[in-house]
Every structure is written in C-alpha cells, then in structure tokens.
C-alpha cells in the first residue's frame, strides 16, 4: 500500500494529441520480467465471492491463458485487471493488482487511466454501430476529444495492420463497422484496443463467437502481438490455451488451482484437479 498514492502520470497521450510513445512507459524493474502482479485478490458480486485470494504474476510480452470450467471466475478475474469489474452493479474488489509496481486499486488512481493502459477485447465483437470502420479504430482518441488527425490516421493504419485487417478493408474505411463479418469485426475490436497503445491486452474468450478459420486468424495474431504487448487471454478451449499461451492458469470455483508454464501444466500438471480438467474428466 506504500505506493498507493502514486498517480498514473503516464497517459498514452494528452488532450492535444501530442502522443508519447510506448517507450516512455515505466520500464519493468530489471530484477524481474513481471508486468502484472496480482496479490491476494478477492472479487465480489454483492456478498458472493467469485474470486478467492488469487496470487499470480503475469510476465512481460508473454501470453498468459486463463482456463477453467464455466462459472469458475476467470472472466471476473481478468475484468479486475483493468478495473472493469466495478462497472458491474454490486461489483467489489479487494487486494492488489500491481502494474509495473503501481497498485491499480491504490487511492487516487483513476480507473479511466488504468483502462488506457490495460486494453480489453470482449467475448462478442462489440463494434460501435454508429461509426465507420475508421472511426471505430480511432474511437479511443475521438471519444476522448483528441483532434490530431494525422496522429490518429497513423495510429489507425498501424493498428489495422497489427490486427491483420488492413489488407482486407483498406478501401472500405468509411463503411460502417457493422458491415464486416464476425471474424473481421473481432479483429476490428482488437485494432481498436491496440490503437491507444495499451501495455497489456486482456482478451475475454475472443474466439467463442467465431468460426474455426476466424479463430485461427486471431490465434496467429496473438502470436505476433506478444512482441509488443503483454496478453492475458481467457479461453474455454484448452487446445487454444495450449496453442497460444506461454503460461496457463487453471481456475476452479473462484480459486487459482495451478499456474505455470503452459507446456508444463498441460503435460505434467501438479494438481489432481488440473489433470482431471485437462484430460476432460470434468468441465
């Protein structure tokens, strides 16, 4: 709690839109490559405790998968990493989430600033229907009143390229975002999240509404993105977790049962429950 009063001074941009690059983000401490450190996290819906005393560290520029059966609290858990859980009525969080050594739940920390640093992609593509493809990607800036057109245009192009969507839609930027296919819409949502240069990208079952081909594209994308951004992905699909992630956390009824390198966890799990789950004995 000692550093709880530290302000999130590092906004990715200011109102005039003279942008700072990701290089200006505080560097991770040299003794560790940990980006996010979760300490004694308890998460509540009213009186119900959905996540129980979770400790977990998420490594820089790696993909961490969260797996577990439905209702095990995995979505609830990642929604705490960018302070989206408290948007839910009755939602309450105890414990610490340290991003580069700063407690995201410290006093004086604005959740709006947290969400600029920790982006999110949701289960179903949630493209803004009132906006064009271009404006969707630019929305992180435009909704916040940023007017620097040239900077925004560069961000939009770069994010669409990073989201592997640019080639498909570069001539249709002014069409409505909702005119795209489901898989394209989800990549548009990824581009939208990437456009504001987040340090961490949370993905809450990003492929659950997509067909296998679109899913493969997103998985490929995750591989490329981890060069520049730390990724936490919730997935129902164990094969997906095995394919895309470096680390895997197994949640069961709100508890973190096991956490480790993906290969280790899938080939030689330490806990009985983990083994039962990954071998398909339940869940």
């Amino acid at each position: 709690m000692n550093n709880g009063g530290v302000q999130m001074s590092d906004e990715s941009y200011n109102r005039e839109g003279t942008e700072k690059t990701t290089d200006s983000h505080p560097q991770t401490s040299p003794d560790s490559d940990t980006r996010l450190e979760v300490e004694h996290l308890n998460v509540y819906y009213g009186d119900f405790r959905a996540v129980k005393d979770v400790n977990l560290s998420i490594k820089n520029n790696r993909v961490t998968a969260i797996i577990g059966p439905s209702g095990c609290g995995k979505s609830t858990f990642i929604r705490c990493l960018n302070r989206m859980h408290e948007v839910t009525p009755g939602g309450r969080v105890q414990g610490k989430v340290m991003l580069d050594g700063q407690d995201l739940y410290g006093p004086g920390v604005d959740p709006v600033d947290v969400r600029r640093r920790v982006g999110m992609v949701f289960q179903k593509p949630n493209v803004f229907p009132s906006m064009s493809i271009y404006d969707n990607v630019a929305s992180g800036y435009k909704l916040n009143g940023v007017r620097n057109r040239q900077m925004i245009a560069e961000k939009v192009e770069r994010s669409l390229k990073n989201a592997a969507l640019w080639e498909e839609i570069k001539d249709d930027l002014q069409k409505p975002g909702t005119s795209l296919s489901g898989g394209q819409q989800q990549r548009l949502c990824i581009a939208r999240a990437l456009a504001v240069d987040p340090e961490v990208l949370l993905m809450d079952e990003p492929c659950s509404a997509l067909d296998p081909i679109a899913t493969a594209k997103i998985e490929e994308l995750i591989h490329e993105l981890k060069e520049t951004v730390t990724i936490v992905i919730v997935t129902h699909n164990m094969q997906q977790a095995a394919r895309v992630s470096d680390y895997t956390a197994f949640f069961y009824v709100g508890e973190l049962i096991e956490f480790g390198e993906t290969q280790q966890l899938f080939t030689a799990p330490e806990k009985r429950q983990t083994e039962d789950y990954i071998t398909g004995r339940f869940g």
Partner: protein
Amino acid sequence: MKATSMQRMTSQTDLHRFRVRKLVELLAVTGMVLCAAVSIFFLLAILGYVVYRGASSIDWEFLTALPLPPGEVGGGIANALIGSVLVVGCATLLAMPIGLGAAVFVNEFPSARLGRAVRFMAEVLTGVPSIVVGLFAYALVVQPMGSFSGLSGSVAYAIIMVPIVLITSHEAFRLVPPSLREASLALGVPKWRTIIGIVLPVSSKALITGGVLAISRALGEAAPMLFTAFGNPFWNLNLGKPIATVPMLIYTYATGPYEDWHRKAWAASFVLMMVVLITSVMTRAFLRGKAHE
C-alpha cells in the same frame, strides 16, 4: 420411433384433432384481422371525414391571411399557424433538454431510488389531464406575469412533452447494448464521454422519434392553451403576449355561432392533421434514409 409416430399421425382421432386445430386457427386469424381492420378504420375514417369537410376550404388565402372580423367571409389562419409553430417550438426547446437529461439520469443510475421514482412520476405525469396542466401553467406563469402569453402556453406544452421525451428516451437508452458501453469504458473513455459519444448516437433514431411524438402531441392540444396562450385574432410574434394557436382556433371556431367559422374549423383541422402527418412521415423517411447510409 418413426414408424410409431407415422402410425399415430394417420390414426382417426388424430386426424380429427388436426382438423379441429386448423379450424380454430382459421377463426383466430379471422378474428385478429378483424381487430386490425377496426383499429385502422378509425384512423382512415377520421382522415377521410376531415378531408371531406376541410380540404375544400383550403386555399392560399386561408394559409396566409389573418382572420377577418366575425360575420365577414374570407380571411385565414396565418397567425395561428405561426403561433403554433412558435409556442410548440419554444416548448420543444424547453422540454427536449430536460426530458433527455432526466432520461440519462434515470438510465445511468439505475440503482438510485430517485431515478426509479423519476421514471414512475413521468409515467403518472403523462396521465395528467391536459386541462389541469393548463391550469397549473396559469398559476405558475400567467398569474405572476399578469397576462396571458405565448410563453405560458409553451410552459404548459413543455409539461406535457417532458414525460413523453423522458420515457421514449429512456426506452431508447435501454436498448443500447451494454457491451458497447463496456467497449467504450474499456478504451479509457470516461462515463460522460461514453454517454455523449456512444449512448446518444446509437440511440439517436429512437430519440428523434420520441421527440417528434412529443411535438405531434403538443401540436394538437387545445385545452392547455385555454388559460395560457389564450388566442389572439391579430398578428403577433411576441411570446410575452397572448398568441393564437391552431387547436385553440379550432376550438373557438367550432364552438362559435357562424357557419363560416365551422367551415374554417374543419379546414384548420385538416391543416393541423396534415402537418402532424407530414412530420411523422418525413421523420420516418429521414430515419430510413439514415439506416441505409
């Protein structure tokens, strides 16, 4: 499995039951078609009758001239047309921001007891008789100002419009998927910018429809004008003074002793109805065009 179900289909009692069900369906559909026909019959009947009584008296003079003294044939309702536009326009300027603002509050703070109370009271307010609203506006504006005025009429209309705007806007906001709001918040957009940048644009069509509904309702109300705008046979653009409005003029003419006045009341009814009709048709066309963008 298949064989047994086939057998059951063809058995005598089931065939009978199937026929009965078909017959009941036919009766039910006929009944519903009749109900639908009766519903639109009244709209068409009113339209037809007003056209029959009023359309023949419409000419350029009727729309552009001032009323003549009682007994003289000729003259028009230009002052009432402009008066209605002014009074309703001013009421819209009052009611839209208030109704929208309240709807945003009710929608964004759903757990607040006050929000739910506001919504409930808006529903009650839509049921308050418009003549009572007129009396209230009389006490609120006319008495302190010391004279009837267009402004007091606008206040009365606004009181009628606010709950309509509030309820339609609230329903429109409720239809905005929560996932869009979350997407915006997750981008680091504050709540108030999310409301302005996402919730309002996404629901804009329904907001416009609600606004037009409120305007149409006010345009046709005569009762709230009785003790507020009052009416005025002369040309007046000053909202601080008594002013003529079309529904009030219809009331005066229809209850007056002259045959020419009755004719003019029908003609004015025709004009009023056409204005409301054209407004709503044009709104629909505009919104449909927007959907195809």
